[in-house]
């Protein structure tokens, strides 16, 4: 009983400390400094978009649902801000059914409004189609076989944004931002068949899985987790939610390191006593 009580008390102390380490920095986030740095793998994506000529078509695959929104939405927003600022033509799509409604359409429309871009001319949103790998193979041969219409049921061939695009091979840069297996699907099917340069954004949990694909050149760059999103915001000089969230993140990291050290000290002291 005493052991159980002690475990519960310790648990509650940890919960409270973590909660405070999040809430207090959230309230006073403006006073916490954060260095303006970016890693090479994130900068590679920035450089790739920066190198594209005005009007070049790029494709962004939004493959996450609201449960990963906090981590991945800032990435998409950063990418869209950058692309729209460069006057690139952007095609939005998803191979994840849960992203089909709110997530994909919501972010694209929000960013288009912010940057005064027009649907059908500067950007287009594709409806969800099932069978991720099959759809990627299909659009790598003929884009309009996979997507004859956009999500508003306009014929894609008639839209200005699709001028000069026949298949994935005509896309100058594709990037998949995913909370699941969509990046793998894009590497295996999209990249292998479409041969276009591919970048990826993913949750922190998955980031280490994709580093080998950077070494092999299958990925141009990689954004892993909120930290990478904050770095991208720094690169495009538009600090937004990711940057703000990284401040509490720094405090929580320090708190976790402290808790690990304290936990180890208590463990070894207890061992010595026994």
């Amino acid at each position: 009983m005493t052991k159980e009580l002690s475990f519960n008390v310790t648990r509650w102390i940890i919960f409270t400390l973590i909660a405070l380490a999040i809430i207090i920095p959230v309230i006073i986030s403006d006073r916490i400094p954060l260095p303006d740095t970016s890693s090479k793998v994130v900068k590679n994506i920035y450089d790739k978009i920066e190198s594209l000529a005005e009007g070049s078509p790029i494709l962004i695959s939004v493959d996450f649902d609201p449960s990963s929104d906090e981590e991945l939405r800032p990435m998409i927003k950063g990418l869209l801000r950058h692309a729209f600022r460069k006057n690139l033509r952007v095609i939005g799509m998803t191979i994840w059914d849960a992203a089909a409604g709110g997530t994909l359409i919501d972010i694209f429309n929000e960013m288009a409004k912010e940057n005064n871009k027009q649907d059908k001319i500067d950007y287009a949103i594709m409806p969800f189609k099932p069978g991720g790998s099959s759809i990627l193979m299909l659009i790598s041969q003929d884009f309009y076989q996979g997507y004859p219409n956009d999500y508003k049921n306009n014929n894609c061939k008639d839209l200005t944004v699709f001028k000069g695009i026949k298949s994935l091979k005509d896309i100058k840069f594709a990037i998949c931002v995913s909370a699941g297996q969509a990046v793998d699907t894009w590497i295996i099917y999209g990249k292998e068949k479409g041969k276009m340069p591919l970048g990826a954004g993913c949750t922190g949990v998955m980031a280490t899985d994709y580093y080998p694909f950077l070494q092999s050149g299958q990925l141009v760059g990689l954004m892993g987790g909120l930290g990478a999103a904050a770095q991208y915001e720094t690169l495009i000089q538009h600090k937004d939610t990711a940057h703000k969230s990284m401040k509490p993140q720094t405090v929580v990291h320090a708190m976790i390191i402290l808790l690990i050290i304290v936990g180890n000290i208590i463990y070894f002291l207890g061992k010595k006593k026994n």
Partner: protein
Amino acid sequence: MQSVTTTQVIEVWIAVGCTLLIYSFLYKDNPLFKLGEYLYVGLTAGWGLCTAWFMVVWPDLLLPLSRVIKSYFVSNVKLESNDTILLVIPLILGIFMLTRLSAKISWLSRYTFAFIIGSFSGMSIPLMISADLFKQIEPTLKSCWGTDVTIIQAINTLIILIGVIAVLIYFFFSLEHKGVIKSIARTGIFYMMIAFGAAFGYTVMARESLAIGRMTKLVKWASADYYYASIVLFFLVAIIILLWELLRKRESANPDNQAS
């Protein structure tokens, strides 16, 4: 100050309510958490069904098929590029999948599975071997010297090469891990420990990001613009859990209940 519409206020109250229902698990498993959990499962299933119907089954299958069938009877039906009678095949295969609900005719679903497995294997195997195997072997076997290779690149290549060999040997069980093999296998363990550490660090960061995102919104929604949604609902959830605890304690203290 940014004006907030009534719809936004309602949305925020629902969002805060659902967040707190799920977070109530931090106390312990309770009926409010269960309610949140069931709501999530139900909504996800409903969303999936609606997406499948309105974005796939209706526009890509039933609507084109109805146009094709209609065109056989009415002359002025305008067909679109992807409209074909061949859509009957996926329709039949799809219906076969539903036969799993009946034990008598569930064998029909095997045709659909056979089609899916066969076509998917045919499409995937060559591409997977190319993307996941050949293209991954390439950087492992890169040259460590040459005019275009910097010292850092050479060191990186060596680190990768040693890591791949060491980890492969660790998982090679046909030889007893003794002597040189043991040393190499131990190097493999170090590599894996570093990989696990990096993965764990990233995982912690990811979970924190989600908590920070939610907390940021809960703090924002605690303002007067949203009628103090976070504060009001926090206390409401706390009171309900407290009442539930009291009720539970009273029930367990009741001798009739204990006997039963």
